[in-house]
């Protein structure tokens, strides 16, 4: 048995098989349980080590060969697998409450498997191809066959596809840089190409216009899932480049550039969020800011190590899941999430409204909530390096706070006298309740993530050391 078989092919096969099931609850249970089991295996059973259970000896080999390429998942990748499949389980269990289980689970499992493969593939440049495959698989997920694809979806496909050639070209040139490190022109060219590739892949300013459009066109829960998993894997893929090439890692200009781009993402995301009149678009700009936080954390790896980047991942995933689920639950008369339609919904959907509010405030970095500890650490780290950047960080946070407060005001301002009454189902209440408790637990006791955070940086040999 090999690790790629377990964590890449198994979810892909189960994803394919789950197309055969029609009950939402069954499909959600299949997706959630599969992911949970895979996370559990990654947590308990070591890779490349014999595990004796009575007379039985189990060993999970780390690699497998596919079409002449290796797929390698080393013991150092195990914490990442726990994180990815653990969070996927959360998203898949939530699909029943969001009413998108049959849509998200099959494709979601395949997308997750492909993205895990992108971490495992060697030579690692092939990751760009696997990410592109995941993007292509996500197209029917975002636009069912009977629906005309919207402008946001087309733009998503264009931008994500454009990333692939840039990264492949960059990789081709990077091999040359390794061979002749003194060739400055080649170095600059490869860095520029790599940068452009990631600008498209991570939807860096101003190439993120597809995110709010997609939020308006597709199910918020489905888009939320993709907005969680794609940037997470893309960021780890990018950190892989930094880990591999010392001249990239040690370039102060590059790290400083990453910080500036992160700050631009945070500030523009925050300012745009402050002026939105649609909760879906507000969520979109919050995710843009979230990407900004991660880029800022990557820019600080020289001083803070990679711990800070990983500290963001779980609160980000949890916050997005709660936000997306709450938005899927809130039903308006005209089916949109425009402020006018959502006025006073807190009285009929108090738990979903609470979920939206807490998720938005967590992104803002309100103390007690999961988003606070990583933002505090990042803000302090930035202030140590440059106080001006810390002030811009504040501007971004204030923008996000304005957006969150406006949304809250809309939700609680009733059109007419309406009594408090919860229209959520018990499954929805349970999922949102657990999620909100999770937000508080991670906000008050961030040390609960420590067992995972201690091991995650080990997947990089040089970065942050």
């Amino acid at each position, binding site marked *: 048995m090999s690790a790629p078989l377990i964590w890449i092919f198994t979810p892909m096969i189960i994803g394919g098989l789950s197309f055969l099931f029609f009950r939402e609850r069954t499909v959600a249970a299949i997706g959630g349980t599969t992911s949970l089991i895979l996370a559990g295996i990654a947590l308990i059973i070591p890779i490349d080590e014999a595990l004796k259970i009575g007379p039985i000896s189990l060993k999970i080999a780390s690699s497998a060969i596919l079409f002449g390429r290796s797929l390698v998942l080393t013991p150092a990748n195990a914490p990442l697998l726990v994180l990815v499949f653990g969070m996927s389980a959360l998203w898949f269990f939530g699909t029943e409450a969001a009413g998108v289980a049959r849509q998200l689970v099959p494709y979601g499992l395949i997308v997750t498997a492909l993205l895990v493969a992108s971490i495992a593939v060697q030579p690692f440049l092939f990751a760009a191809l696997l990410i592109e495959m995941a993007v292509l698989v996500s197209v029917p997920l975002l636009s069912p066959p009977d629906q005309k694809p919207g402008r946001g979806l087309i733009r998503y496909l264009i931008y994500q596809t454009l990333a692939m050639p840039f990264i492949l070209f960059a990789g081709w040139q990077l091999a040359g840089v390794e061979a002749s490190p003194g060739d400055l022109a080649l170095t600059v060219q490869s860095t520029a190409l790599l940068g452009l590739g990631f600008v498209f892949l991570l939807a860096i300013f101003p190439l993120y216009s597809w995110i709010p459009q997609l939020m308006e066109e597709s199910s918020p829960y489905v888009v939320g899932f993709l907005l969680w998993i794609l940037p997470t894997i893309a960021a780890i893929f990018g950190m892989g480049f930094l880990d591999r090439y010392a001249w990239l890692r040690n370039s102060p200009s590059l790290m400083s550039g990453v910080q500036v781009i992160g700050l631009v993402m945070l500030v523009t995301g925050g300012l745009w969020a402050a002026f939105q009149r649609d909760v879906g678009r507000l969520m979109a700009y919050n995710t843009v800011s979230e990407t900004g936080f991660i880029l800022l954390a990557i820019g600080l790896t020289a001083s803070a190590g990679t711990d800070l980047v990983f500290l963001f991942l779980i609160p980000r995933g949890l916050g997005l899941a709660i936000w997306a689920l709450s938005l899927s639950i809130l039903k308006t008369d005209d089916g949109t999430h425009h402020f006018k339609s959502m006025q006073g919904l807190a009285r009929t959907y108090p738990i979903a409204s609470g979920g939206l509010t807490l998720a938005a405030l967590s992104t803002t970095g309100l103390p007690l909530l999961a988003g606070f500890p990583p933002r*505090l650490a990042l803000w302090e780290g930035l202030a140590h390096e440059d106080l001006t950047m810390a002030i811009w960080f504040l501007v971004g946070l204030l923008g996000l706070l304005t957006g969150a407060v406006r949304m809250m005001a809309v939700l609680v301002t009733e059109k007419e006298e309406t009594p408090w009454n919860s229209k959520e189902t018990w499954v929805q209440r349970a999922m949102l309740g657990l999620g909100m408790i999770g937000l508080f637990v991670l906000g008050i006791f961030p040390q609960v993530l420590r067992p995972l955070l201690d091991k995650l940086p080990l997947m990089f040999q040089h970065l942050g050391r």
Partner: protein
Amino acid sequence: MLILITILLLFAAALTLVILRLTRPEFRFTWVIAVAATFLAWITVLLWQTQIPLSFTLLPWQPANLFSTSPSFSADGLSWPYAVSLVTLALAILLTASAREGFSSSFAWAGSITLCGLGLLAVTAANPLTLAMVWAALDLTELIVMLRTVNEREAGERVVAAFSTRAIGIILLILANVVSSASGKTTEFTSIPPQAGLLLLVAAGLRVGVLPLHLPYSSETSLRRGLGTALRLVTASSSLVLLARIPTASLASPLTPFLLVFACIAALYGGWMWMRAPDELTGRPYWLIGLGALAVASALRGDQSGATAWGVALVLAGGALFLTSVQQIWLNRALLIGAWALSTLPFSLTAVGWQTDVSGLTIFLPLLLAAQALIIAGFIRHALRPSTRASLESQPAWARSVYPFGIILMLLVQLILGFWGWDGAMQTGAWIAGLIASLLTLGLLWATPRLPALNPVRAHWVQPTTASRLDRLYQNLWAVYIWFARISQTISTTLEGEGGIMWALLFLILFVSLIVQRKP
């Protein structure tokens, strides 16, 4: 450990009340359990005196390379009077509940106890990180309680607006923490650098309603006296305790005189509106603004004990007045102990109110004394005001016995704190300033029936007059917001429109060229 015991007692009591309400709504001894637990908590706070200074730390935040501090709590000579006043308030709310309408509202009691417990956590917070977390807990609790309580159509918006003002206060507190960390100092209150000290001051001011002067809730009177009083006073004291934590050296800034001017204006405005308020509940926001401003002014003058004295007087004197829901002539007269507590005369609770002035800005003292006189005159007027409230004699026998204890307890603690228990006890203070303030108060009381300008405003006049001025300010701010929103909308439309991809690529090239110029 004692801190933890007190807080656990309060939270356990609140939780028990909620569970009993949900599982056994007919249970008859709910109130007794609440009073007993709160009384025990009160005793434990008194016991803190035997071990002060005391502290405890929650589990340290990890990884240690990312977090310079962890949530921790400590009690010293300045936080103890706040702690005792908050637990006294909780106990008084329960005792006086016996004479209030809707007596059997155990959710409201649980809410009041929880708020006082959170207030206790705030006043014992040992560093900005802990205080920010407790403030957030208080704000979320208040948000939920207010949204569940208010029924007016626009009240929800006002609740959210108040929440956002306080959230900005929290962000400023965290910014102070960040600035402190950036300057290489440990992120503790004791090592706050000057630039962060002023941020802390503004954070406290924003949360108590001093800076800027903002509109109070008009729906506040619809809240019950018990829960409403707990909400307002706990929030204010949890903010004002910060003033006692700011080291004097951290406030040495060229901006200090300007902030002192703001504080004087706020104190005079608060005092004036408080004195002319038609009743104590309508005037409650101005009470907070007036006394909060005096506390800020004391902090700016470098007087931590003075700031604490005003903050504690705000809770104890105000609490006694706001909890008085029935008429009894001797109790009304006893309330005048609150006026004594506010007088800054020797051995009063606020004796240290004007004692220290390291700022050298004595020029502002007359204005502050005038504000103090307005506040005391208003207090006396509201305490002795002929009222339409029901008389104590009309209450059930057991309520007649229990209710006065609640009020007397608040008054007694004010007297005791003048003599014992904290850094500002047993002080003669700046007695001349106290004497001047007292004479001014007497003058105001003499002049009130004689000068129409000093007479109380009719209830229905208060809100519209204030609202119209502030509404203009809000309208102007809204116009600026709309202007920026239009710009944002234009850019979004451009980027998301037909030619969006070309525009995006153009912006991208511009952006890259800017970065390249910045980092050659």
